[in-house]
């Protein structure tokens, strides 16, 4: 029993609810929202420290022991992801301070961003599959509102599509939970895992696992990503950065959790399906990233590529592959937030996201330009930066498990990623300067602080990989050996 486990989701929820009452006091809202994100980060860091000392921390809500009550389970993976989610939210909050107008701020952007963070952290920390559904809905409901807030034609159009897809996916999720409950008679994830382990994974359970894969795939953008480029390019840049960093990653986390803990006995079906989908996701995402000449579209397709890449490591399911996936997941949350913030700033300064109409920004915005170059290299996985180690380990795992074709595909798509982001860099920063200082649509003020914060993390995760690695290894232990997780929750 450890009450700190609840804090990363309780703090943002409480302060998010509180901010609704001080709607018109914008400055106070900003302070409180930033403080809440930092407090949530602090709680996650304390949690990481405790897990490193004493192993997985469990909180049985209301004192009802598992499997009867609803537990919150903080293993290292969940705690690390909650910490990173809090940092990313904090950076996006900093970005909003100057970037979005007062009207939007007074229409509940801050409370909604905090409640989104609460839903994300809750999804990471919960140990109950129905509770996972509830936190998904908390996250999705606030994302619907954030996406449509402002009510421009594009936003409304994309919100409708996004919402319909997600409501259908959530209904399928409830169906899958219902089947799983009738098969195993429990909702506690660890208990489900134990019962599936005892009775064996029969055809029906495997079918349910594929239904769950469909649901999480829809949320994560694994192959079923057709809604993603439209809806991620509609909202204002800070919200888009938050979505790109957090929303799809929750789906990835759910896939990692379910397919390393519960559905482990039929890898020739489930994990092969994941591998095929990962390959298709990478290929289609790469085609999209190359084909478009709009900054927002290119960045959105880059989100899709990285999802495919992370799930390549999950599908391989060896210790090396999973370590790579976890490392790359952490890297990707930070790097995607960074590049979306920078991309959003470029679009705001130039007043358009059409690459052919932007040119020569480096003359007035040198720091922005070099930060963008840095994050482009980080995304592609160039050595001193954080993307490299994750990529290396995933590829190593894949080659050890003889998935040569997939390894080739992922190397090729890495090149495409590099090409697509460098294309943005060259076209928007090099060349003849079209805009004079006065003609710029926006000053892009307030971009640099959050960007420096995230860029520092990207560099630190790359150079300081040695000191971060033990934590990742501890996060991977329960993934490779599910019994650790089961014992921690049930006994």
């Amino acid at each position: 029993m450890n009450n700190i486990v609840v804090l990363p989701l309780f703090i943002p929820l409480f302060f998010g609810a509180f901010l609704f009452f001080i709607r018109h006091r914008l400055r106070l809202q900003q302070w409180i929202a930033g403080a809440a994100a930092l407090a949530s980060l602090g709680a996650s860091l304390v949690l990481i420290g405790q897990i490193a000392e004493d192993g997985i921390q469990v909180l049985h809500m209301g004192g009802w022991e598992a499997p009867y009550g609803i537990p919150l389970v903080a293993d290292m993976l969940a705690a690390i992801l909650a910490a990173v989610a809090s940092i990313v939210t904090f950076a996006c909050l900093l970005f909003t301070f100057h970037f979005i107008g007062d009207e939007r701020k007074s229409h509940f952007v801050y409370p909604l961003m905090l409640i989104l963070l609460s839903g994300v952290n809750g999804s990471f920390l919960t140990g109950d599959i129905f509770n996972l559904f509830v936190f998904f809905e908390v996250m999705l409901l606030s994302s619907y509102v954030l996406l449509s807030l402002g009510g421009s034609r594009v936003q409304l159009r994309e919100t409708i599509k996004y919402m319909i897809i997600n409501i259908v996916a959530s209904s399928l999720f409830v169906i899958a939970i219902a089947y799983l409950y009738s098969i195993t008679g429990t909702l506690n994830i660890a208990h489900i895992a134990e019962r599936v382990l005892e009775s064996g994974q029969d055809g029906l359970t495997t079918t349910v696992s594929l239904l769950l894969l469909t649901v999480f795939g829809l949320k994560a953008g694994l192959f079923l990503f057709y809604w993603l480029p439209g809806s991620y390019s509609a909202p204002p840049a800070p919200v888009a950065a938050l979505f790109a960093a957090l929303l799809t990653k929750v789906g990835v986390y759910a896939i990692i959790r379910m397919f390393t803990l519960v559905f482990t006995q039929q890898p020739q079906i489930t994990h092969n399906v994941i591998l095929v989908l990962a390959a298709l996701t990478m290929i289609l995402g790469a085609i999209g990233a190359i084909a478009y000449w709009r900054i927002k579209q290119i960045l959105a397709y880059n989100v899709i590529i990285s999802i495919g890449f992370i799930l390549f490591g999950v599908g391989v399911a060896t210790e090396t592959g999973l370590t790579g996936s976890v490392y790359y997941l952490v890297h990707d949350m930070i790097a995607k937030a960074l590049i979306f913030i920078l991309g959003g700033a470029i679009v705001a300064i130039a007043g358009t996201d059409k690459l052919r109409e932007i040119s020569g920004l480096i003359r007035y915005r040198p720091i922005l330009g070099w930060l963008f170059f840095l994050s482009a290299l980080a995304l592609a996985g160039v050595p001193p930066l954080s993307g490299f180690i994750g990529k290396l380990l995933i590829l190593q795992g894949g080659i050890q498990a003889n998935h040569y074709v997939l390894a080739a595909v992922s190397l090729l798509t890495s090149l495409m990623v590099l090409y697509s982001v460098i294309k943005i860099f060259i076209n928007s920063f090099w060349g003849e300067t079209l805009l004079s200082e006065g003609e710029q649509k926006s000053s892009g003020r307030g971009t640099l602080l959050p960007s420096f914060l995230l860029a520092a993390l990207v560099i630190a995760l790359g150079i300081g990989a040695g000191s971060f690695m033990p934590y990742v290894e501890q996060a991977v232990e329960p993934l490779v050996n599910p019994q650790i997780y089961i014992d921690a929750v049930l006994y």
Partner: protein
Amino acid sequence: METVMTIVAGTLFTSGVYLILSKTLLRIVMGLSLFTHGVHIMLMSINGLKRGAAPLLDEEAASYTDPVPQALILTSIVISFSLTAFSLVLAYRTYKEHGTDDVEQLRGQEHE
């Protein structure tokens, strides 16, 4: 009784999917609503409908129906209720802004 409820759930799924695949926004919202209700009824009948008395924990507890699915449905109903409310508002606003409720007209990638 479970058989009848299963058929009801199936009917709701069918009509829900039919409505979601139609082109009018309001029909799609209705379809989503019916679809989620189909899920709820399926969830309820999958673990058996009510037998005996209320499922309190005593010596006869084994003869009663498992109450957990019903608790789940309650949560799910609340969520689907709020989603339906929000999607109705969103559909209305979209209709006002775009001047159409035909999803064919809401296609495209243009970002004005």
